């Protein structure tokens, strides 16, 4: 029951936030990202990330709706805008799409706990 309430809250937050993505003209990863890591039976499809940039490294959390997993490793390659994130035993790899838009997305893959699948998250 608690899990459903948390997920419902996150969905509501996603819907409200998505009505107007906040501008972000600085580091392209900074901000809140919401979407799916599809086929993640252990955590559920829904995932929320909060990313920040302190001038030298990317920090933040990955939150599938049940707990926060601190990011232990994250890199952005500006040559092709590919992203690599590690948190809670998971590895996420993707590419920033529509970099110029506030509601840019990261499309790629996830793997962890012996599983893998597609990743798609959109900046809010």
């Amino acid at each position, binding site marked *: 029951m608690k899990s*459903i309430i948390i*997920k419902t809250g996150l*969905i509501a937050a*996603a*819907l409200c*936030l*998505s*009505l*107007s*993505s*906040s*501008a*972000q*003209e*600085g*580091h*392209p990863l*900074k901000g809140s990202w*919401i*979407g*799916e890591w599809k086929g993640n039976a252990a955590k559920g*499809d*829904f995932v929320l990330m909060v990313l920040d*940039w*302190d*001038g030298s490294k990317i920090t933040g959390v990955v939150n599938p709706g049940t707990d926060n997993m601190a990011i232990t490793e994250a890199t*952005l390659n*500006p*040559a092709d*805008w590919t992203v690599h994130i590690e948190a809670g035993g998971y590895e996420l790899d993707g590419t920033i799409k529509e*970099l*110029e*838009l*506030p*509601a840019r*997305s990261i499309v790629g893959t996830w793997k962890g706990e012996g599983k893998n699948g597609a990743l798609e998250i*959109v900046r*809010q």
Partner: protein
Amino acid sequence: MQSFTLKTFIKAAVLCTSLGLSATQVLAHHPIQAKFDEASEMALSGIVTHVDWKNPHVHVFVNVTDGKTVTNWAVELESPLLLTGSGWNESSVKPGDKIDVKGIRARDGSRQVWSENFAVAGKTVFALKDTRPAKPAQAAAAPRGADGKVILGSADGFWGYPSSYALIEDGVNVPMDRYGQLTELSDASKVAPMQPWALALYQHRQERDLQNDPMFINCKPPGGPRQYQSDLGIKFVEDKVNQRIFVLVGSGNRNYRIIYMDGRDQVGSVTGDDDNPLYYGRAVGKWEGDTLVVNTKGFNEDFWMSNGGLPHTSSLVLNERFTRSDMNTLKYEVAIDDPGAYTRAWTASWTMQWVPDQEVPIHFCQDNRP
């Protein structure tokens, strides 16, 4: 069922976001080169059907006849401010006039032309003059108040027409146009000491002809040094009783910036507060001789701090120096310290020209037409 609902909601959210942005972009006022293709020159002749004399750009609609087919074209011209300054007005061209237009066509292939002049019965109208006021051969000394301090602003004019439209590190010579578009993209790394991500983002914006400039697309304020990079300029209002200097910004929806001169501490924060407007940061100033020295921090990351799209982060700290060296010249010097986007602190400088006997021009963004 839960999974289906979840997916549906997420897709709906993404769709909402996408549609919202698309609508914004269609309605937006883009820099000229982003909307029109300089390599696509064209000429057309027709009958004026309507003149839309509004900021940010005037539009003249023209019926063009080709055989039995009549099509309506939109001819886009500079702002009413610039046209009025060049001697034209709303009645210079009227519905029913036959006009001959030379210009460049819209990149999207729509029936829109950007033109800087056209002709009625062979006589040129709407040609732009350089509205920059002539500098006197010998400038008078900077005016001073009863307290002996240099007066930065007065009621009978404003500062505009910068000597540079670009934010470039002092000592670097890189050609770019008035919108900050580089002549050569390969010069990007010379402009300022950017971190790799900032350089790549700057190049991406340049490659897209600055199409996503938030000042044009979303009417975001020209925060940071950008407020001093427009012909439309700024005006200082010194409130000595309350120890504040207001900077009225001509180019950004009549925004204003507050510089606190009362000796308060610098506590700028990106979360903002009553005296920390996020687009202009929290600015505290003091006089050093005839120079106003201003320290500003607490900027958000929702705007471009320069024409051309140099990135910044919330770590940005500006140290600015304003010196009225004579009646007609304001020297602007800025030290930019942003370890989030740059590899070291750097400086830039230019001058602005006194425009006498005029108020700061009225120029609202397209979404805020008066």
